[in-house]
């Protein structure tokens, strides 16, 4: 396997979706995405923030190559491995936690897997079947699986939704550790501005459907150095920006 890529060698993710529409029952077409364009470099964490139902998952599916029916183009790192965490864990219930990860990442060596399981607090659950896990644990297995393939591009679709706050905060920390360790291109989709501000290097704010980009805001302070005060002030900036754009309705949904 070609897992010995030199650091800094992979191409950016370049997303240009001019338009994406679904046919609906009445025979009309429902426009979901409108003129979405952005680029993410290696090691950069982009957070797509938008209200529920605005088309964020559709966009991730297009970027993942699961949906090819759209106008535009996606340039992914060539032959780049893709890691994805879906909204639901999507584990194979008939395989153990360890087998779920190994099946997807057969090239990962035992030492790397052990580290990964340790970081995510899964060391004691390797032999369990997913049915015996809580949702929080299952989500961590999904994270472990995505990282085990050593992705060049990591896509996360609301990975912490419906978890209680302390657990979500811990998993965010674990995710930040992993992202820093592996230096991947990460695209995180969320409707939670707080989560986005804690994790991302760049915020991409989307409007309600059909989604278009309202603002593309880089965060200057590195993730590790952000204090609670920084996070609060960035959140306030985001809110101000949305009000300035005449989107207070969107703001309300974010909070």
């Amino acid at each position, binding site marked *: 396997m070609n897992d010995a890529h030199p650091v800094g060698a992979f191409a950016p993710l370049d997303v240009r979706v001019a338009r994406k529409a679904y046919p609906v029952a009445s025979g009309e077409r429902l426009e979901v995405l409108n003129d979405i364009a952005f680029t993410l470099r290696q090691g950069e964490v982009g957070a797509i923030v938008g209200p529920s139902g605005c088309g964020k998952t559709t966009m991730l599916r297009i970027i993942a190559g699961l949906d090819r029916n759209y106008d535009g183009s996606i340039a992914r790192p060539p032959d780049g491995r*893709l890691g994805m965490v879906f909204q639901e864990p999507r584990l194979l219930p008939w395989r153990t936690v360890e087998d779920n990860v190994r099946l997807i990442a057969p090239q990962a060596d035992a030492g790397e897997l052990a580290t990964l399981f340790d970081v995510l607090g899964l060391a004691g659950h390797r032999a369990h079947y997913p049915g015996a896990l809580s949702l929080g644990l299952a989500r961590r297995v999904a994270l472990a*699986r995505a990282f085990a393939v050593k992705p060049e591009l990591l896509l996360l679709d609301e990975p912490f939704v419906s978890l209680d706050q302390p657990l979500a905060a811990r998993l965010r920390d674990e995710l930040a550790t992993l992202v820093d360790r592996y230096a991947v291109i990460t695209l995180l989709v969320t409707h939670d501005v707080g989560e986005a501000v804690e994790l991302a290097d760049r915020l991409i704010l989307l409007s309600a459907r059909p989604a278009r980009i309202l603002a593309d805001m880089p965060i200057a302070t590195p993730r590790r150095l952000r204090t609670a005060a920084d996070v609060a002030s960035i959140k306030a900036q985001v809110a101000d920006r949305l009000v300035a754009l005449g989107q207070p309705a969107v703001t309300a949904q974010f909070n």
Partner: protein
Amino acid sequence: MLLRLASLALFIATWYAGSLFAGERMLPAPDTVLAAMLSEARSGELFLHLGATLARVFLAFMLAMTAGTAIGYLMGRVTLADRLGDPWLIVLLNLPALVIIVLAYIWGGLTEIAAILAVAVNKLPNAVVTVREGARALDPGLDDMARVFAMPRLKVLRHVVIPQLAPYIAAAARSGLSLVWKIVLVVELLGRPNGVGFEIGVAFQLFDVTRILAYALAFIAVILAIEIFLVQPFERRASRWRLRPA
């Protein structure tokens, strides 16, 4: 367990009573049948015929299950295949077993291949219909997962698709085994020189009820053993990941 034993004892008692009432010729007593079974076993005849029948059951069953699973999967996944295959399926489902057997013998001669194919074709539509339901119920979320992580096809089949189809395949196998062995006996009766069906045919011509019952019971015992020692352990293994009810 006690209830089961009591029920079995009641069955044997009823059999005895029936035998007393109807006479040994119409319904021989259980011990007469057992003696006949033992004597057939000592001569080796019993095992010869049982073996021939079991081999046919096995081959026809494997053939029908393999082809049925493949066709059912295709029809459940590909709309075009479903549209094209559906009329054929309805014809096959409603074609009487006897017609298929007689036609197979006329077209293929009184051969082993014709016999096994006739049995397999009788079982096939049932397997197709059951597995098709399973294929329609496959989880699209797991499909996407396998595609995103670029799982090789064979791996997807083995670790993602087959485990989802397993309950449907097991259901088809369960009903299939009983259907296949019943049809195998008819096929043997009509055109094979050995096997349990052939023996029962001979016994029918001689009006030998003892022999009919001896062969039938021996065969039921074998099928019961297959169920307990092969089918049930397999099912337990296939469902070991499910949470046990506490």
